[in-house]
């Protein structure tokens, strides 16, 4: 890995990522999207985010891909607090607290 490789990666990943982000808000702008499309787009957050993290929870890299009870319990705690109390702060605090407690207990 040389300096040029690093810079090329930074620059092209930066430009490409910006274009991905700008794509729809920039090009579609204020034209109205068809109803079937907005109906699907409503579910983007719940369609992308749970899938993105599921493998990280079930097969965490930190444990070499082994199922880890501490991380599972932490995820469940965050999920419960977040959905019952609708609290972002509670979910984050509760989840991290559960993680550290479990890592300490299960050592």
């Amino acid at each position: 890995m040389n300096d040029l490789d690093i810079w090329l990666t930074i620059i092209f990943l930066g430009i490409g990522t910006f274009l991905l982000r700008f794509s729809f808000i920039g090009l579609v702008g204020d034209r109205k999207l068809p109803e079937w499309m907005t109906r699907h787009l409503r579910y983007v957050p719940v369609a992308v985010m749970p899938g993105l993290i599921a493998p990280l929870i079930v097969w965490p890299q930190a444990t070499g891909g082994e199922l880890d009870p501490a991380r599972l319990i932490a995820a469940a705690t965050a999920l419960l607090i977040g959905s019952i109390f609708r609290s972002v702060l509670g979910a984050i605090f509760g989840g991290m607290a559960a993680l550290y407690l479990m890592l300490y207990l299960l050592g």
Partner: protein
Amino acid sequence: MGADMSRTRSVYWQGVRAGAPFLLVVAPFGMLFGVVATEAGFSLIQTMAMTALVIAGAAQFASVQLLVDGAPVFVAILTGLAVNLRMVMYSASLTPHIGKAQTWHKVLMAYFMVDQSYGVSIEKYERSPEMPLADKVSFFFGVISAVAPFWYGFSLVGALLGSAIAPEYALDFAIPITFIAIIAPNLRSLPHLAASIVSVVVALALYWMPYNLWLMVAAVLAMITGAQVEKWLEARK
């Protein structure tokens, strides 16, 4: 005009408050990136350039890891972009709300479109679609002002501290916790719940696929599920 300005300002602060909890996870995650990039052989300038130009933690980690493994540059770039492909969907789902904003606002919002600013803002927009455009824009900038400075700042701290940070802190889990915190409050509606279950199941089943394709397939199937369940519920009324 005066009343308008003060309302916009208060919406901005609402955004700041809504974004603030994510400090708790963005800070450690940024720090972790600083450490990992430095250990991989990035100079301080390179680490900060990547953090500032890309602002997308997961993609940055993926590209750095590939460069360390000796992958060709174009593979490192394309993999990073594949990880960020979800941003196209974020962009599409924001369009009905902020598509009419001024171009330079949209350019800035695109630059600052990260999971947290997107997730918190879209939740707010869906809950109160009647918000004026100016308020939607202010809210988004409020959320990101609570997040971005800490992302930059803690990447810098991580780059300076380097390997002084021990793995026992389990910082790898900051990401899953963030996403759960963003999503969990939405899971009370049946279509949302169904979509998220499909997303999880398909992602796990297809995780063997290369280039993050598993995530794209899972996302599309989950979106279809959400939309169909919504239609079905409407038809039943």
